């Protein structure tokens, strides 16, 4: 407990690093994967290749990816950009499939109705498809968020530190408290991000959350 108090500045420092490192891949991964999935859904061939692409991307072990990115990107080896890019790749891998499913699961009769009312392609995408796929997209983003926040810690193995620092140091010093604090802080961040996303969802998609009991058509 004493350790916790003495080191709270360091914990806060790494927690902040951790959040900063996580935000970017979550956002960028989503921004890339959502339109890509929507485009790919349009054609049978590209649609099925989404699944192949994302399972291959997801199978890349994180460590070597982190090691090789500096060579590919011509960045320095301790540059956080490496881990940002790696995590973005995983985020895209997860998000591609779930976004593809999200768009496919839209009730076709609503799309049909939108067509019949004279929506153009862009307006239909932003006003109908995106909002209707919204709750499933959000579910996907929440998975991405949790997984990214957990993966950030792997960066500690190559010297890009986050709360993962405490795992390695605690392991070396046979100091479980330090590790558990790191785990708890990571989980808290994951929970925090998840709640923020859930609240965003509630604000942006009120129609999913207001369910007054349906009036029975009696009169």
């Amino acid at each position, binding site marked *: 407990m004493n350790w916790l108090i003495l080191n709270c500045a360091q914990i806060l420092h790494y927690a902040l690093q951790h959040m900063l490192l996580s935000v970017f891949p979550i956002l960028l991964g989503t921004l890339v994967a959502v339109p890509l999935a929507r485009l790919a859904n349009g054609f049978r061939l590209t649609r099925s290749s989404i699944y192949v692409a994302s399972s291959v991307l*997801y*199978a890349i*072990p994180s*460590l070597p990816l982190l090691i090789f990115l500096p060579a590919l990107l011509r960045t320095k080896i301790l540059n956080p950009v490496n881990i940002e890019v790696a995590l973005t790749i995983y985020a895209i891998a997860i998000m591609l499939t779930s976004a593809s499913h999200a768009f496919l699961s839209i009730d076709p009769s609503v799309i049909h109705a939108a067509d019949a009312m004279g929506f153009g392609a862009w307006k239909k995408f932003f006003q109908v498809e995106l909002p209707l796929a919204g709750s499933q997209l959000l579910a996907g983003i929440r998975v991405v968020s949790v997984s990214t926040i957990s993966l950030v*810690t792997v960066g500690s*193995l190559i010297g890009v530190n986050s709360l993962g620092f405490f795992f390695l140091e605690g392991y070396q010093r046979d100091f479980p408290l330090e590790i*558990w604090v*790191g*785990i708890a802080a990571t989980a808290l961040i994951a929970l925090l991000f*998840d709640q923020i996303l859930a609240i965003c969802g509630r604000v942006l998609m009120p129609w999913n959350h207001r369910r007054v009991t349906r009036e029975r058509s009696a009169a």
Partner: protein
Amino acid sequence: MNVFSQTLLWLGDASNWEGTGGISVRLVQHMQYSLATLAITCVIAIPLACYIGHFGRALFVIPVINALRALPTLGMLSALALIFGLGISAPMIVMVMFAIPPVLAATYSGIANVSQTTTHAMRAIGFSEWQILWNVELPTAFPAILGGIRSAFTQIIATWTVAAFLPVGGLGRFLIDGLAIRDYSQMLGASFLVIGLSIAVDVLMLIVQNTIERHSRYSQLTTQS
């Protein structure tokens, strides 16, 4: 790139494949670990999901299990390694922990998605609860369950590499040991092996899935729609 040709050399060098720390041994170890993880996961997750999905009871388990995903793999490995010491138990527990959510979720949603009308109808014509589960829900949820197992399996194969941060075998050894001495060709070679392994497993399971479907006209019907 030079490192690619070196990687090919590393993979092609027969001496790298032999011996206790050789590629063959590591590859087999990796498969053994992964299969064991998958088996334990299924034994835990599928019955649990069936129970929750069918009876609609203990629903809180689903978000709790999903919350497991928020625990960082590396941290859990370190923490449990200090508790369990050397050996396979610590990483195995961690891997199972992370494989359970996808299998549980897929099975649960597969079962819970079986139309209420159908289960209601079955109950109404005199099926007992177990008969409903066995005759209707499991067969209907089967493709979903298989899908969950498939994605869990590839995930397991990829994640076991991180476990090599602890003194265990498997292909991750090449990655962690290679990292310490910056042996690029070894790391890249092992990555190819891991990716290849998980694609092979994925394709294999896809073939299994397709074979089952081809022999059952029913699942063809459901996958078409």
